[in-house]
């Protein structure tokens, strides 16, 4: 199967070389991305990474969530507080309510890897600026120097985890693409605005969990399944939100095992890798059943309700029509959410178990994370980053999807970003993304030429959608909502984005079934052409 895929790709590349690429070069021999030697290519990747880094650094100048808003501040304070707790209290007490660790004030509610990461960063900050992470006295500590240090903890995590993962993915999955395509794919992954805004503006460490997930995806598409298990388990141990990808990983790896001569042995091997990784991550908390359960309990905040603030998902998007929160009690809602999530993720799982393929896997990642984003319990607006990652990984294969998903994902976070005073960078990065889509390039999206993508290409559809978004922006910024519905425009934005996401979700599901297995889709797309 794999040989098939490779051959198909090579064949496609050869064809592309002869038609579009060479033709394009002939047409405009004057300017192209300046890289003909292998060294220039390496440096070009370096330049893309450098630009991505520069953008992140400039974002670090901006305000962060909860800046100067006593007494609870925001996510910045939460991360700082975790550093304070992990540096100054013994491991056993990290997830436990003690005199030094008041769980009501930003108690640690992410899995152990986040705690270890906070500990490492906390040690560094403790060495450089002890007051910023001093026990109890440092609550709400904000000054220029500690902001700089905190920003650098995120920047360095991005450089150490997300950038290498993105490079690895591009070099493995787009191995056979021409240089310009690879460069474009890399820039789409690294310059995706939502992740930059949330991590380096709002302040979070999604770059670590998403970087690990991207690394796992790179391992899956290059058939290093054991590595994939380890990386994915690490990702899951950094943020439980990575469970959004679980159906895809589970289904794809199971499907691969079934194709083998001894499926059971394959499954056991993978299971051992997962268990080992988990055991190592959870080691300090495995001394007793009680302490392990205590940590688990912190990770599942059922008391926090169906969704938080304004999320462009099913529950919030339809709340204008159906008052879910008033109609049902929390346990019923939780069961409803679980059922709906599984139902929505099921088609893509079945497809991957039946016919696992690299491209199908990435689509399954997208579909299952969308299913979780839409229907699961306690979803944040930031969770849209999860479906965004596979969409950017598929940048070359599904450009239409990317062009539609990224802007609306960013728009769906507008209420959050406005609260954080990040409106200016919001517009700047959004504009930058549209400009990058217009980047002068010498390749065509060949694969995208099928019936489905034609819908996306219809200019009238795009213009209407953009006009709607523009009107919403104007309303949101310049019109005072009626006092009875003070969050009317937030709800509009949410529903508008949800409608777009839903279409994209259906499209991506169709796409996944439409592409049966490795190697066959080239011929099918050929027929259409």
């Amino acid at each position, binding site marked *: 199967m794999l040989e098939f895929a490779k051959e198909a790709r090579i064949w496609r590349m050869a064809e592309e070389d002869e038609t579009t690429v060479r033709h394009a070069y002939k047409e405009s021999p004057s300017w192209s991305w300046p*890289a003909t*030697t292998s060294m*220039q290519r390496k440096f070009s990747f370096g330049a893309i990474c*450098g630009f991505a880094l520069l953008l992140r650094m400039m974002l670090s100048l901006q305000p962060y969530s909860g800046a100067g808003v006593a007494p609870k501040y925001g996510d910045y304070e939460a991360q700082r507080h975790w550093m304070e707790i992990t540096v100054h209290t013994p491991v056993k007490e990290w997830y436990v309510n003690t005199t030094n660790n008041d769980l009501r004030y930003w108690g640690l509610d992410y899995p152990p890897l986040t705690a270890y990461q906070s500990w490492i960063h906390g040690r560094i900050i403790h060495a450089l600026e002890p007051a910023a992470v001093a026990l109890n006295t440092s609550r709400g500590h904000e000054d220029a120097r500690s902001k700089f240090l905190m920003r650098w903890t995120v920047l360095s995590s991005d450089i150490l985890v997300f950038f290498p993962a993105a490079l690895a993915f591009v070099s493995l999955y787009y191995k056979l693409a021409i240089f310009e395509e690879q460069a474009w794919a890399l820039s789409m992954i690294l310059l995706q605005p939502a992740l930059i805004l949330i991590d380096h503006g709002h302040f979070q460490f999604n770059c670590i969990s998403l970087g690990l997930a991207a690394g796992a995806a790179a391992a899956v598409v290059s058939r290093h399944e054991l590595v994939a298990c380890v990386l994915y388990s690490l990702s899951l141990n950094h943020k439980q939100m990575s469970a959004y990808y679980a159906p895809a990983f589970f289904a794809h790896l199971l499907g691969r095992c079934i194709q083998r001569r001894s499926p059971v042995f394959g499954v056991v091997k993978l299971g051992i890798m997962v268990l080992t990784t988990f055991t190592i991550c959870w080691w300090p908390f495995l001394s007793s059943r009680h302490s392990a359960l205590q940590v688990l309990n912190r990770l599942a905040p059922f008391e926090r309700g169906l969704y938080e603030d304004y999320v462009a998902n099913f529950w919030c998007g339809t709340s204008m029509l159906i008052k879910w929160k008033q109609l049902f009690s929390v346990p019923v809602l939780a069961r409803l959410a679980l059922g709906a999530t599984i139902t929505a993720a099921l088609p893509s799982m079945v497809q991957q178990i039946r016919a696992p393929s690299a491209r199908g896997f990435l689509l399954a990642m997208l579909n299952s994370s969308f299913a979780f984003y839409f229907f699961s319990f306690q979803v944040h607006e930031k969770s849209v980053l999860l479906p965004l990652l596979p969409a950017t990984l598929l940048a070359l294969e599904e450009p239409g999807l990317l062009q539609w998903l990224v802007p609306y994902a960013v728009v769906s976070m507008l209420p959050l970003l406005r609260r954080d005073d990040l409106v200016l*960078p919001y517009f700047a990065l959004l*504009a*930058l993304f549209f400009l990058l889509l217009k980047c002068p390039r010498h390749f065509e999206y060949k694969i995208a030429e099928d019936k489905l993508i034609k819908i996306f290409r219809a200019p009238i559809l795009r213009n209407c959608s953009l006009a709607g978004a523009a009107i919403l922006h104007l309303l949101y910024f310049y019109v005072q909502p009626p006092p009875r519905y003070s969050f009317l425009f937030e709800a509009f934005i949410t529903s508008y984005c949800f409608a777009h996401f839903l279409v994209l979700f259906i499209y991506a599901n169709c796409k996944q079934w439409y592409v049966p297995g490795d190697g066959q889709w080239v011929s099918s797309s050929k027929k259409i052409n």
Partner: protein
Amino acid sequence: MGAADLQYLLWLVGIATCVKVLLVPAYHSTDFEVHRHWLAITHSLPLKEWYSDESSQWTLDYPPFFAFFERFLAIFASWFDPQIVDLVNGQNYAVRSVVLFQRGTVMAADLVLYWGLWEIGSGLSRMRRRILYLVVIFSPGLLIVDHIHFQYNGFLFGILFLSLAAMRDGNDLLGGIYFAALVCFKHLFAIAGPIYFVYILRHYCKGPQKIARFCIMASAVISIVALAFGPFLYHGQMPQLMKRLFPFGRGLCHAYWAPNVWALYSTGDKSATVVMRKLFGVYIDRPKAGLTGGLVGDFTPYAVFPQITPIVSAILVIGSMMPCLVQAWRKPVPNAFIRWVVYTFTCGFMFGWHVHEKASLHMVIPFSVLAVERLEDARAFLFLSVVSTYSLFPLLFESKEYPIKVTLLLLYALVIWLNFSQLFGTSTKDSGDLKAKAASNTELNVQETVKPLIGPVEGAYLGGIMVIEIYGQCFHPLFFGGSFPFVPLMLTSVYCALGMTYYWLDQLHMVLSS
């Protein structure tokens, strides 16, 4: 020059503008308050009091066109937030609205820069033109000085480009008018006056109607100057205006030594003082605050070396310009004009009185037009732009911008290296990357012949920058703690001065040999 080029230019402009918007909350210097105060002066006071107002220490000291420009901006400022243009209550007003407004005006003013680029690019081949856009729009010097530190240089360079484009195309009259206007915006550009004068005299005012042509040119230039200074002359403000424009009370060197010959001269003087004392026991009557003087206060007399007066400085500037003036007199060809202008700016920078480090932009930005045309110039440009940007580093002294300025410099150097090496087909390494060569035979023929973009001497020097920077950032605080804070600054200045001198000599050689 088709729609595709315009689209490409606008694309780059869009990306650059996004970057500039992200820089809005970055550090801004006192120049920010200077320009805000000028908005207030021009908005609140009648024209005749503009140059005599002393309600703040930031008095108006740019020529009238710039004052008119501020007056124009003040119209929008008063709509945007009336407190910006309040002469008294607006002082040190730096809330979000002012920052947004002033940063926005710099970005909008850059439109003139893009227009100038479009005009100057029209004379180049498509590929060179596109690289020129990239090189100028993303110039880290301009980003640092205009969009972080805060000044309005971008649009002035736009006018300079318009002038140079007109001169290159043989339209001397228009070029002269643009240049006169430019000088009425910022008189620092007047340093190129001599070459403009000589060139126009020999190239434009020739032939049978030379007297008539001279009169046309003179009346055009005079009417521009009259437009600028006339209203002030009418109100009897000229002496006051001149006092503001040419404050001779200032010293030879600026607070932070600009990397020119005077930085080397001052260092030589300081070392000589020490050597005299240590070796010969001659204690020279050192003026107060001798070593720190150049950095903290203004002008300190030299202890050992002869004193430098404004006249000496002026003679040296004119003297160093002579080669190109003589050439322009002998053979006034439009092709060489841009090089001569860049060279005169270089002379002004190297020997000028009270030069700011920011003035190095005056030679870097116009030089980029030459850099995309010839390999030798591309090499010099790569070297010069790194040295010049590095010499601007002390402008941004806060730690939050530190990673940004370093990344800007490295990224820019990398991108122009990529573009130039593609444009001129040079190899990256002189010794040769055998593996890479073996991998692709097609590259072989290009790699062998041409000189590399960064030669061994330049490479060693640029490596030295890294050493200086690491010393200043890590080892100096480690060894000396907080004491002698001026030493890293002085090292930067002197080291960059060496690089600038190297560049100047290189350019002198170029001018002489062309």
